[in-house]
């Protein structure tokens, strides 16, 4: 009898579970600004959808922990898993674990290394990373030309963590753009990592300024570092009209800085859209629909001319 009650209880539990689609989400870090926007986008989308329940966990930038979380999701019988990879080089094991358990898996925001060999029932939702750095860099090049500096301009670049694909890609995009015929009047004085951080960027920029090299442009792999550089330049009494500063993300701090005439270029990555898109893709995979391996949410260039569209 006891066994029967237990079994009945378990069946009841499982059947209520089947009403709501359980989706497990592992986010690389909770304390990253951009990822927080994405996470909030997921939560907002979850509230709009009926019968979807998210379980969001923080991988605290730890590759091993993230894989454990995924295996725990599989063990607890979720209907799908969404992963924002800590380290994009470590996704092979995650794909294998989910595929062997037959659980759909969606990578969001960071492109997995095994993109080309992604098993069935798995997809990648993000913006096409190549767009962001290229859009910002090309616009900076145009701005420098418009300022009449096509005879020669000098730039610094602040990079994110070098283990991060976005940092590597955006840095490469910038260097590709200044290698083009139209923009090769720009020379890169130095590039260093400021680990995505405003504080580190502020100190690094001040160090650069202290060497006394003249410069015309500063490109940050993200807005936080661009803002840090702006704060350092302002503290050193450099007029923000003379320097073209570009970033990526279009954070609200960056938009305010642009309104104040400091930041010149940034790129809006629809992170909330990526979060929502990853849930839609996961649901489509659960329902066995045909889904593209890569679902791209476009980037948008933000400049003082069109900033109005991006203000809240």
């Amino acid at each position, binding site marked *: 009898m006891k066994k029967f009650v237990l079994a009945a209880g378990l069946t009841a539990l499982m059947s209520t579970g089947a009403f709501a689609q359980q989706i497990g989400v592992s986010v690389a870090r*909770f304390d990253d600004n951009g990822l*927080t926007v994405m996470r909030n986008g997921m939560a907002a989308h979850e509230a709009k959808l009926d019968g979807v329940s998210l379980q969001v966990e923080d991988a605290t930038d730890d590759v091993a922990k993230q894989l454990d979380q995924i295996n725990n999701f599989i063990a607890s019988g979720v209907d799908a898993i969404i992963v924002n990879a800590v380290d994009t080089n470590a996704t092979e094991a995650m794909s294998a674990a989910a595929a062997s358990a037959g659980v759909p898996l969606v990578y969001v925001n960071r492109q997995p290394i095994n993109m080309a060999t992604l098993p069935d029932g798995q997809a990648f939702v993000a913006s096409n990373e190549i767009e962001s750095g290229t859009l910002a860099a090309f616009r900076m090049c145009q701005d420098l030309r418009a300022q009449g500096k096509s005879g020669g301009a000098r730039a610094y670049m602040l990079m994110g963590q070098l283990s991060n694909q976005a940092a590597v890609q955006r840095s490469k995009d910038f260097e590709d753009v200044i290698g083009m015929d139209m923009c090769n009047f720009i020379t890169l004085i130095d590039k260093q990592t400021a680990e995505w951080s405003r504080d580190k960027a502020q100190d690094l920029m001040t160090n650069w300024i202290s060497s*006394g090299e003249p410069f015309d442009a500063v490109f940050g792999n993200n807005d936080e570092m661009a803002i840090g550089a702006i704060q350092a330049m302002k503290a050193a009494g450099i007029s923000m009209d003379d320097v073209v500063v570009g970033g990526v993300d279009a954070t609200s701090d960056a938009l305010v800085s642009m309104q104040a005439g400091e930041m010149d270029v940034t790129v809006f990555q629809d992170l909330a859209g990526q979060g929502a898109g990853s849930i839609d893709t996961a649901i489509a995979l659960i329902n066995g629909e045909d889904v593209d391996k890569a679902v791209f949410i476009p980037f948008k260039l933000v400049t003082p001319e069109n900033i109005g569209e991006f203000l809240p």
Partner: protein
Amino acid sequence: MSDTSQGTGGLTFDKSKRQWPNELNVLAALILIVIIFEILGAVFVGQSLLFDTNDRFDSIFNEARLRIIIIQVAIVGIIALGVTQVIITAGIDLSSGSVLGATAMIAMSFAQVAEVNGAPNPKAIFGPAFLDLPVIVPVMVGLGCGIIAGIINGILVAYSRIPPFIATLGMMLFARGVAQWWSSGNPVSFPTEAYAVIGAGMNPVIIFLALALLFHLVMNYTLYGKHTFAIGSNEAAARMSGINVPRHLVLVYAIAGMLAGLSAVILTSKNLTAQSGMGLSYELDAIAMAVIGGVSLFGGRGSIVGTVIGALIIGVITSGFTFLRLGAFYQEMVLGCIIVGAVALDQWQQKRAAARA
């Protein structure tokens, strides 16, 4: 090394046994590092690290670089002043970076301005009643949060006899959780103008040096300082000679917490934003400054002056590597070697001094 008698401030303090002060060794290391960078600079980039080689300033020094060398270590340096005192009691504080993170979020929430470029503050945490507050409010909130965290650390260490490593490790995790929970990971930005003044320009440096002077005097010329050294040199002896050890430990950890809270205020003011990831691994940077400056992790030995020079060494290395345009990885490799080297050298000298005495 025996753990009782070579202290420069312990119970067996004896002026005649005092060797050539350790601070001079640290200072010599600083000068040596500067000379190495000057040589490398002359060879590879054709510039001087500290001197004005292209006539941009009215003095013989490159003033901009002198300033940044110390600005970039001032905030961690303030934490290191507290950590130095904790380590002198033979304790450790792993929580300071996280306490900084939590305090940054909380204090900044009370420093926000109501309107940004004519629109309501997009990052406001509280309602209008808590915006545009006088600057004293966030400063007091910041110091208060730090003190509370420090007192909890102190009580755990002194009364429940949890090892300091574990007690402050717990606080490190807890405070980082608070930092992320406070605004669910969202940054807190746009402080009032008065708040932005605290960390502007050279203010972090002025605060750092003023506090260093204050604590140098406190550690050397007050009962508080003598008791701190006494507890670190030999806790049982300190208790037997009538020092209220638990109460004193709570005070030391509370001061360390307060300094972490203060550095949160200065850092958020300098950056005009608070983010839950702020202060990550600052505790280790602060411990590194103290250790390079000659503070012994066994307790009872060390000085504020040493820690300040330790901070300057880290500042010179950071600026020096950017000056040589070398990547950050090399910087961390060199720092690792310097920390181990500094302690190895110190141990060797202690041994020699002990053999001579």
